[in-house]
């Protein structure tokens, strides 16, 4: 069994080496860096294992102005087919089209297509936490995702009036899918993918400081340091809007910590900070070759090293812990922010400056509330060596920039030994 798992892990480690620009894809599915999944030790258990299932209720995108848009419009409202073919000296077909359309100006209507599509996503995460003496624990998370993009459509905005309009229709937008295929761009069609996410392990130190104050009864602190292993399914640069299931081949480290205060017997409030830094990663990527190209369909492919911006996650929560037997309720505000990335091209075929004008390299943010309803059977099974716990998460994103925000419902079943 372990051999099989090892094989699968190895297979995913070495499978392909293709990336889109966005290694940390801006989506709010539970990922390994989500502190909501971290568990406090209960009943002096030595081992805690869990399995989480997350399904999306609806998925929308947020553009740079934080407006709700279709997921395919998070970077650009329209796909600009005229600028798409610019700056491609080695693409014969693009050169030919660029030459034909050299005199045609891009008025942001002509040659522009509105992309739409429906994204569905679900995640499954297995994790295990082993507690060592002196408040140390080791945690392992291995997520598993399934996603599909359906109903991919491009609506042509080009008018039917001027010669320029007609030229663009004839040469660019009439059969857009075939054109993109001929130009070596990503396949414009629906897709469905299932695979592993990145493996995530960390060492955590936690401690409760009991307080003998009228209200404040306990202060809980934790710190953690971990590593992400790129076991996840990488994005496919030949697929439209392909989403990596992990960090797209990059290794990463993180540090984090939090503090939680308990008032009375059950009211808790806490804050948590976590910082993730990915190591630079080289891969074949799609890059921009013209400043005004749309992010969704890029035609140029080249090997490039990506330098990642730091990822920050802030959580503030209030919790009513075991307010009725083992039932707890938690309301969490989570803010995720990823800073700008940078590309370094491996050759001089294209301009690094131009490649770095990519909107996909710009930082993104997500604001969301996570409501956690859980029941811990430790109250009901005080002497049992196996204690189950069940949690229901309801995630409500309410703001963000350049990101895909999913309203999800998750069920988490954990067992402590």
């Amino acid at each position, binding site marked *: 069994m372990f051999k099989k798992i090892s094989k699968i892990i190895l297979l995913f480690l070495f499978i392909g080496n293709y990336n889109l620009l966005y290694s940390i894809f801006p989506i709010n599915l539970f990922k390994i860096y989500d502190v909501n999944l971290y568990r406090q030790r209960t009943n002096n258990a030595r081992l805690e294992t869990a399995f989480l299932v997350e399904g999306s209720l609806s998925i929308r995108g947020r553009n740079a102005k934080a407006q709700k848009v279709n997921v395919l419009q998070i970077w650009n409202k329209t796909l600009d087919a005229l*600028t798409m073919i610019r700056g491609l000296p080695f693409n014969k077909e693009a050169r030919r089209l660029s*030459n*034909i359309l*050299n*005199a045609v100006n*891009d*008025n*942001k209507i002509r040659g522009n297509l509105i992309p739409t599509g429906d994204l569905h996503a679900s995640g499954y995460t297995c994790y295990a936490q082993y507690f060592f003496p002196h408040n140390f624990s080791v945690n392992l998370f291995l997520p598993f995702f399934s996603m599909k993009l359906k109903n991919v459509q491009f609506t042509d905005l080009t008018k039917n*009036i*001027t010669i320029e309009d007609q030229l663009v229709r004839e040469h660019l937008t009439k059969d857009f899918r075939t054109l993109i295929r001929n130009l070596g761009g990503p396949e414009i069609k629906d897709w469905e993918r299932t695979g592993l996410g990145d493996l995530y392990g960390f060492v955590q130190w936690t401690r409760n400081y009991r307080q003998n104050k009228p209200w404040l009864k306990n202060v809980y602190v934790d710190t953690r340091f971990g590593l992400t292993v790129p076991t996840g399914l990488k994005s496919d640069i030949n697929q439209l809007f392909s989403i990596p299931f992990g960090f797209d081949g990059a290794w990463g480290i993180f540090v984090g910590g939090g503090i939680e205060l308990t008032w009375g017997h059950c009211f808790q409030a806490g804050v948590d900070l976590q910082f993730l830094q990915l190591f630079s990663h080289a891969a074949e990527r799609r890059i921009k070759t013209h400043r005004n190209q749309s992010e969704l369909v890029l035609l140029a492919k080249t090997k490039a090293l990506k330098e990642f911006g730091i990822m920050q996650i802030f959580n503030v929560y209030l919790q009513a812990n075991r307010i009725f037997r083992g039932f707890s309720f938690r309301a969490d505000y989570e803010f995720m922010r990823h800073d700008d990335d940078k590309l370094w091209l491996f050759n001089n075929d294209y301009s690094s400056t131009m490649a770095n004008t990519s909107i996909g390299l710009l930082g993104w943010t997500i604001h969301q509330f996570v409501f956690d309803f859980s029941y811990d059977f430790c109250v009901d099974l005080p002497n049992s060596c196996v204690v189950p716990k069940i949690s229901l998460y309801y995630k409500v994103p309410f703001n963000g920039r350049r990101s895909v925000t999913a309203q999800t419902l998750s069920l988490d079943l954990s067992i402590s030994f």
Partner: protein
Amino acid sequence: MAKRNFFSSLLLIIFLFTNTSILLGRVVDGNCKPRNPKSGNCKDEKKETKNLSFPIASYAFSTRYNTYDDFSLFVTSNAINSGEFSIARATRNSANEKNKSKAGFMPLCPQKIMFNNQAFHINPLYNQKIPLIKLLSNLAVVVKENDNKLYLLLSTDDPKKGELYSSVKINDSLKKPAAEIISLAVAEQGFIQGSWFLAAVKNNGNEKFGSEGSGIAMIYLTNKQIMEKKENIDYLTEKPRLIVLNADPKDKLKLEDKNKEDKSKKKSESDSDDETKNAPKVPSEDNKAFPITGKMNEIKIGHEAFIDNNIVDMHWDRILGRLYVAFSVKSNSQSGSGARAILVGRISRHKLIFEPIAPDSAFTSNDQIVGTGIANDNVSIYKVRTMRTSTLLNYLIVAGGNGTLEAVGNKIFALPLVNENHYLKKVSEMSTTQGTLAKYDQNPKEFFNENEYLLDKGREFVLPAKINSDLLTDKDKAAIVGNGDLPLNPNEKISDLFTINDAVFVCISNDYKNKTQPGIYSSQAIFDEYGKITAWTKWQRVVTDKKVLGAECDIPTGQFWYIAPNENGTAVELSEWGKYQHNPNALLNKEKNAMGLFDSLHSNFGINNDGIHQIFDFSRFTPGFNNFSMLIATGFCKIALIETGSLKGSHYKPTKDDLRPLFDSNVGNLPIFNDHAKFVTIHGGHLAKIGSIVAADIVSNFKTNEHWIVVGGVGGIAILMNNQGKCWRGDISLLNQIPSGSGFKKVGNYSFVRKIQSDGEFLYVLTDKKLDRIKISSADFKTNNLKITTLADVNDQSFKNIYLTDFGISNKFGILATSCGLYRVGDYKDIRYAKNFSDVNWTKVNVPDSYEYILKLFFVTPTGNSIDYADQGQVYVLSSNRELNRSKLNRFFVKLQEEINNETIKPLPDMYFKDKHSCFFEFASYKDFFWTDGAQFLSLQNKDTNQKISLETLVSYVYSGLLSSTVKQLPLFLDIKSKEAYQINKITRNSASGELLVNGNFGLRINQ
């Protein structure tokens, strides 16, 4: 018929009634007071007036003396009741501001002023006639009527803080006080040699200029230090000072001796203050003008000549460092006599030295423009200017020529000048040939920098004219500015002459009479492959047909300022780019619904269909027109025919009144209209099949004298014709003379038509994939059985992967712009009779340093008709690269001899490096269109992704080897809502009114 005549008469009456005013941009507010010194607005609105209430005697535009950074107009009064407006100034604050000019004229002559360093002195110029004004930077140098002093006015925004300085009385050449100063010139010689004023004076007895005693006086501008008290503190400040010198080099006086002499002498009584102490480098002997009479060797040839009248004009060329004096002269009646009407002067050691414009030996006939070698013959030059072309060569521009002043008032000539600035490798001050007429057929010499690499020194004519054949005559195309006489009666004179870049402008202030047509006119120089002027474009009206005293183009804003006298005084008007909702005439007449060109087009070409796709101007010289001109505006499945000029009374005049009623047809036929028809729209019918219409031409068959209107676009071409395939025969002079019953019929099987052109025998149709020649025949049109010869086809192997963008046919020659360069008709071929593609033998033309994609061709021809470009025409080639966001402009000279060969089309000598031709200019962004009239270099840029549409102008003296980084490219304010506007298609000159038009999806903007 009677009805038609009635309507014609009515039209005439209406026109005559409203003839005194036209569509206009803005009138600079006149002389109201008091004014707010900051805003320039009149403080008392009730006193606001649009006119200057007095006639203008003289004026000066600052740009003629400065860079384009500042723009101001100084005017002087020709009446004695103008108060502090004796001298007034209007200013454009800054080229970048939306409100480009201050609201009105500011008075510069308060009743009391700091005069010769005395505060609150009575202003001697207040309420005076000021017949002459010149500018030195922003210093105004003026002359008072019946006075022989020079006044220097230091003006500020607050007239009360102005300062005025006067010279002593200026003597004539006999050292007696001159009776009058009749002409002025400012000689700027740089920091070391200082600035000079040169004044042509009449003798003490006020006899005709040229009589004994008349001459040219020199006044030196220097500074002197005086102590000034400000807030009880003494300051040593420098104040200007005018010193009148002895200009006559015959009165030799060593500077050192004179200084010694001065020390021992008492001060001159005329120089009342301590001038000599503060001007040690300038001799201060009694002032004396340089004597100018017909006895001068530089004027006479053989025996004494006679200066005819008091019309003297002077011009200083800063680059050559030479003074040009123009006058009318008559040669002696004795045989062997001749005369010259231009003097070339220089300042050397504080003396004036004159040289003949060309040696005696050069003048042997009476057609050499500035001189005659014939006895008892007249030469009359009444205005003189110089120009430096964009090819870096110097030319003399003169008004007048061989003959009496009454016979040459309508002639303007250009003559090459010697420039030895780099040739002599020393200061050319002492050269006797610098600035004289150059041997016209020499090839100019090019001067590179020390490494013999960069063309940063320039290009010069270095050989002076010596013999008769070295001079251009008044029959040479290269000399005749405007390619013929001005639209002016020969006995009348132009009111102003000025040059901007490669263009010569004249102003005509006489009313319509016989040949005379008032307004501003321009002509553009055409250069050969050596950079020499080889021809000039036909005179073209600019901006207005009003009577204009003087004008200037404010290049950074694209505005023309012009002085237009009227019955209420004088209005100074300035053209502006904008939309003109209504005809001002109609507004004056309370006709609020009147529709001018803008309104009419705007209401017919909506923004939903991308507005006006193209505009084509057909001047009154178009075959098939007689005293009639029109515009064709095209749009989506629609065209408009608009009369722009027709016979009004006995004169062809621009159509400026209400264009209503607007006639419309929605079935593709000509609507039924009457004599009043000036605006006709046609849509529907076969035009609906054409879609976006981007090409139009008046197509003629010269043999049968038949004419058609042909349009083309996305869906092919359509011809306006009746059932017999005919449209009109002979000439039309009104729109309603196009036969009724004609309708547009689609012919041929074309798509994506880009351009159509006809040459009187064939119709040429360019699509993005082929160029076809169609035999023009009504029988063929009727049956739609066209005789087509395909001259270029992208399906041919040699044109594989090439797309056609533009073309031009002229005689047997033709050029074809493509996505892969420029092609011409092959050697010894004739495009008119080529049997097929291969028979044209398209030959690639090297476009130096250009982009591969040739976007547009712009033709400049002596006749104004692009079909004539092979007869000494200029072709501007715009190549653009969308990905690099850059465009380049190249220039070619085309001269078709008997057969086409390598010499037929040649690039102009635009170069950065030695022996390496380059583009003329590189734009800092992608350009969709280029337009020039020689003075303004305008380019259009469509909205492209984040780049907004703009109309930009090059703000500089534009010349060969000019680095684009050193040239400002300023956007002109078009008053367009940027959200809606994304397409700007073309710049077109309305040949009748002279207005510039810009069309796009937003509609129309007019510079008027």
